[in-house]
């Protein structure tokens, strides 16, 4: 078996791959932001036991955690076009769907990994030593101030290792964007293999790129975890 990588010198294919890589990174970053927003909001609802929101959050978390992100993506994609949210482009007068494939992917990544993030942040909050919380309360912080200034910062740092796994999972899941025709790196790869018939070589290259991307994310998050670590809380960095 010999691998032929001559297609890689083609400028067009390089552009496709690079642009795809850019889209994948952008998508992942937006997804991570949405995931964190959902994670913190959900954990807040569960932590304060807000009457209706707690039940709703639990149900939604169970729904998104126990169903495939791919089906969620297809569902969002078709539902949003079925509901027919459309904008009229002022320049051309054409009506374009408000939610493009890209938006749907970011939404589904945010929802699926956000549901996992809710649980991660919540268990981080539970791991905050009760003495610290009591100390804050006795200094006159209100419950929300305690959450905002004490519990969340410490709990978030304690949940860093699990959150790293979740971010890696998000980056990996983003590859399914190609299935709703978002021009990410996977999409570029399928296009190239359709034109060159070098399926195996293209997929191996993409595999390496994804592993590199995920490993980079792991390294960055470890560094962040080390930098922001509060001495005395969490596992000692070795």
């Amino acid at each position: 078996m010999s691998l032929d990588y001559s297609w890689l010198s083609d400028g067009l294919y390089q552009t496709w791959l690079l642009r795809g890589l850019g889209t994948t990174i952008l998508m992942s970053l937006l997804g991570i932001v949405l995931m964190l927003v959902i994670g913190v909001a959900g954990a807040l609802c569960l932590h304060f036991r807000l009457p209706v929101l707690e039940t709703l959050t639990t149900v939604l978390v169970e729904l998104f955690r126990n169903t495939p992100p791919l089906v969620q993506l297809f569902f969002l994609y078709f539902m949003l076009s079925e509901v027919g949210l459309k904008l009229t482009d002022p320049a051309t007068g054409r009506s374009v769907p408000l939610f493009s494939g890209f938006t749907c992917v970011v939404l589904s990544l945010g929802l699926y990994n956000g549901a996992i993030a809710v649980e991660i942040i919540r268990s981080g909050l539970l791991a905050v030593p009760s003495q610290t919380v009591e100390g804050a309360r006795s200094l006159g912080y209100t419950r929300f101030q305690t959450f905002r200034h004490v519990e969340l910062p410490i709990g978030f740092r304690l949940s860093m290792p699990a959150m790293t796994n979740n971010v890696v999972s998000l980056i990996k899941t983003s590859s399914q964007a190609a299935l709703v025709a978002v021009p990410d790196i996977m999409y570029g790869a399928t296009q190239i293999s359709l034109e060159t018939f070098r399926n195996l070589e293209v997929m191996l290259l993409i595999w390496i790129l994804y592993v590199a991307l995920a490993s980079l994310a792991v390294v960055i998050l470890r560094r962040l975890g080390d930098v922001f670590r509060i001495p005395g809380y969490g596992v000692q960095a070795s």
Partner: protein
Amino acid sequence: MSREWRAFLLGIIGVPAVLAALLFAVYGAETPAILAKIWLRTPLLLSGSADFSSSTGGFAANILISLWAMAIAAAIGAVLGIGLISQGKLIRIPSEFVMNVLRNSPWLVVLYAMLYLLPFEVTVFGATVFLSPMVKSIVGLALPVTANIAEVFRGGVEAIASGQWESARSLGYRRLQILRHIVVPQALPLMTPNLMTIYAMLFIGTSLVVVTGTSDVISVARTVIGSDGDHIATAVYIFVLLLFFLFSFPIAILTRWLERRVRAR
């Protein structure tokens, strides 16, 4: 089982309620007609055939693929796990490398790669075996899961007190014998909840096999949408979401219950 029981009831009632509300929000007064259409297609989505005559397609295929992939991944994962805790650097470092690569690779990419990496058919002892897309997707799914299982295996073995190793050593057991007869039997209960989580993850991942051309539930769903029109798409996907949920949610709850029992010991 009270805490898990409550969570189970909440989820098993709440999630279908949410999905039903979504269905109604999208279709409004049309909902009963849409539901009737879905009902007609239910056997097809569940078993891949219109009258349950075979069970190698649709949702049954997802279950089948997940079981086979889990079995293969467990076997290879245990070997890789032994490599991870090996004392020789020559075995440990390559094992760690393989584990990290497999763990960080997207399932979709591995599935695609397997589709082209594995030959169309293989000849074993003179018999030609045709590798169907299903076999390829089983291998493609098993690979990344192997890494997770290896890690769980390592974690479980390391959780056993080192005194067990030393006393077995002094009784004259060899390393692999200690693993086989003393450490793994004790570590297995500790690993079970994690293995179940991995299985649930794998099951959810079987949705990706649609790219290999296996007639799994999503490709059947696409066929149904193709024949009944795009209008029904949202309802079909809600139904598929419900199917996946009904299968993996009880596993998740059982896992939590087991986890609590293991921790309590």
